[in-house]
């Protein structure tokens, strides 16, 4: 049921007047606008997000649409540039865990044997552990910084890809055309890359979009707990944390917008993931 090639996959994704397609479209619109906003940030704001540009704690005004923080940083420019940081970390980390998870899952599922069992056991153990808590532990060990945060998040989500891919690979290696290729003397790696991997693509795409939402929330959690980026790098989770102290004094704009952006971005990816899941309909449960 998953032996579907890339052209058919794209065919299914073509615009149709069905709910799943609306979901994908809306989600895509949200994600695309956030990506574009962060990319063209220098056109939208004249301020540098990492230096003081005005008086501290100014409320929102035409000059500073989202106000300034206690050091006089422009919060609007921090919001725009913060998108860059978040997307960079999250895409980097999900790509890392995807590459590691898919290749390990493929090899493990294709060859089987005791190595497969040991690997599965390890992956299941990691998978069962609460993701945020594991990311915190790794992050403490690695120290702060963009790349360390990306690694911590990547490690946590390797099993998500591993489990999915391994299960599919177990099924696919028994398929006639794979067995046939094997008998014709094709090398193992060639079979994996040429015959099994393309069939995994729909699954991996859906897992990727759903996983990215978890990765965004975990990244925000690390920054919020002071384990992510180093200031003055703009980052939503960090700004939320920094603004928390100012909440009882009524500086509402410091916490409202960064958190809102996290939520909107997650919703965007969720909609895409949900829609794709419906369209491609492999039985995927998300973490």
């Amino acid at each position: 049921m998953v032996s579907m090639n890339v052209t058919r996959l794209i065919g299914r994704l073509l615009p149709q007047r069905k709910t799943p397609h609306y979901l994908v479209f809306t989600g895509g619109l949200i994600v695309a606008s956030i990506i574009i906003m962060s990319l063209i940030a220098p056109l939208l704001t004249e301020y540098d997000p990492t230096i003081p540009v005005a008086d501290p704690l100014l409320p929102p005004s035409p000059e500073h649409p989202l106000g300034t923080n206690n050091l006089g940083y422009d919060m609007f420019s921090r919001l725009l540039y913060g998108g860059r940081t978040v997307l960079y970390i999250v895409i980097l980390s999900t790509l890392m865990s995807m590459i590691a998870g898919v290749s390990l899952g493929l090899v493990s599922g294709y060859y089987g044997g005791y190595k497969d069992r040991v690997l599965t056991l390890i992956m299941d153990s990691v998978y069962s552990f609460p993701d945020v808590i594991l990311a915190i532990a790794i992050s403490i060990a690695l120290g702060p910084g963009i790349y360390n945060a990306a690694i911590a998040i990547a490690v946590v989500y390797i099993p998500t890809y591993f489990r999915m891919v391994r299960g599919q690979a177990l099924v696919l290696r028994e398929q006639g055309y794979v067995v046939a290729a094997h008998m014709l003397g094709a090398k193992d790696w060639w079979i994996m890359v040429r015959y099994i991997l393309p069939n995994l693509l729909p699954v991996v795409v859906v897992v990727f979009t759903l996983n990215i939402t978890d990765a965004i929330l975990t990244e925000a959690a690390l920054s919020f707990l002071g384990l992510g980026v180093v200031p003055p790098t703009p980052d939503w989770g960090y700004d939320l944390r920094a603004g928390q102290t100012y909440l009882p004094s009524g500086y509402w704009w410091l916490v409202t917008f960064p958190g809102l952006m996290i939520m909107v971005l997650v919703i965007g990816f969720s909609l895409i993931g949900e829609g794709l899941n419906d369209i491609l309909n492999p039985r995927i449960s998300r973490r």
Partner: protein
Amino acid sequence: MFIYIMISVGYMRKISRTALSRVAVVVIAIVVIAAVALSAFYLTSTVSPPQPKRSDTLIIGTTDRVTQMDPAKAYDFYTWEVLNNVLEGLMKYEPGTARLTFGLAERYTVSSDGTEYVFKLKEGLKFSDGTPLDATHVKYQIDRVFATQADPSWLVTSFVESVEVLNSTAIKFKLYAPTSFFPALLATPPYFPVNPKGYPLDEIAPDSTAGGAGPYRIKSWVRDQQLILEANPYYHGPPPATKTIVIKFYKDASSLRLAVERGEIDIAWRALNPVDLEDLRKNPKLQVLEVPASYIGFLVFNTKDPPFNDVRVRKALAAAIDRKEIASKAFFDTVIPLYTLVPSFLWGREESFRKLGDANIELARSLLREAGYSEQNKLQVELWYTTTQLGEPGRDMALVIKDSWEKTGLVSVSLNTAEWATYLDNAANGIMKVYIQTWYPDYLDPDDYLTPFLVPEANSWSGCFYDNEEVTNLILEAQKITDQNARANLYKKVQEIVAEEIPFVPVFEGKTIMVAAKGVKGVLLDATTLLKYLTIYKET
């Protein structure tokens, strides 16, 4: 609230439609009666103005915590504060000052070689449960400290060789070496006698509430929730101003702030967010009390490795710093700019860093150019900070410093941070070429702000690798003489040299801040940061 208004508006409408006149009569009647009653009450009350009454209970809120209620084990500010209120030693500090005075002791004599102290106890001392306290109990606590060997035990074991009870009110301490500040050590909790009923000889009693002979005794204690103290009826001194002290332990600064605003507590004590203080100062129902505290904040340079082995670079960065900006933006004026390592409550100071100025970008620029830096070849600096001791203001301080250095146009700064253990490790190993640090003194003397910074070996924690024979000799000379003026002159000379060589840049000194309801009186704050409850009362 909204619902309430909606209901009452709706109710009134209903009434107006039915029987307005009858209701109006009743309402008017009630108003008249009430007015008469009120004015009568007002007249009688103005005849005899109410005397300010002292409340029996005072509620203090804090975000600190009691760790181990055992003077042989506790080694943190807040637990020491509580122990100072429920126990008393042979010596103590006079509230509101950093001056030593007699506690349970009446007088003492020192042997001519300075190694033997004989203390005479006051007569008729009692523990808070009424059992008599004599010299054997003082020895009992010293024995406990030796037997348990816990964290603060060095305050006893490094100095005291043996203790001998001469009679029921006389005790002799034999010391390893002459120690001129031994009476000050006796004012630290490890020396405070405790009630043997609650404190076994060779075991730490972390949850004991048996207390000792302080002005208060513990009525009840629920860890991290509440501590209720009541006046000790057997206390040898004047009775405390308030009978019952209730201490509420809050989980964070926001809750503490709201509690003091809503009048749920009388005193908010350690530690509110600096930004909250700004609001609380404006609150007409509250008073904000502040005194200089003993801790200081400063920058440390690794003077051995490039680029900071060049004194011009160090001087440039020291000149570019804007202390007022740091104090106002990062700390909301809960700290005071500091221009030498010795804080303002002490003597023997020389504000030698004043001549470099604040935000002196011109001087910084010329020094940096002299050292070979330019717009194309910027000085690359990695500035380290930690939030473990200063919290978020520590981070904001780093950001403000980064900004003022980059204003020279010749410096490019990146920030870095590490967890406390790593931070201390990195500091000692000189990995961090320039970093922010704070200092909490062990004893209140200029020496404790100079020796640990400038004397080689003693300053190995800092990773500044500073070693100047002249400075070392001046400091060691000052330790030997007792004349304060002569010492002050030596210290001033040291501070002059420090501002020339700049292994450290003093940035700020802390303040001890308390927010209290308007009626709270008799608060005596001092640089020890240990609050003495016995003088505090509240008028209602």
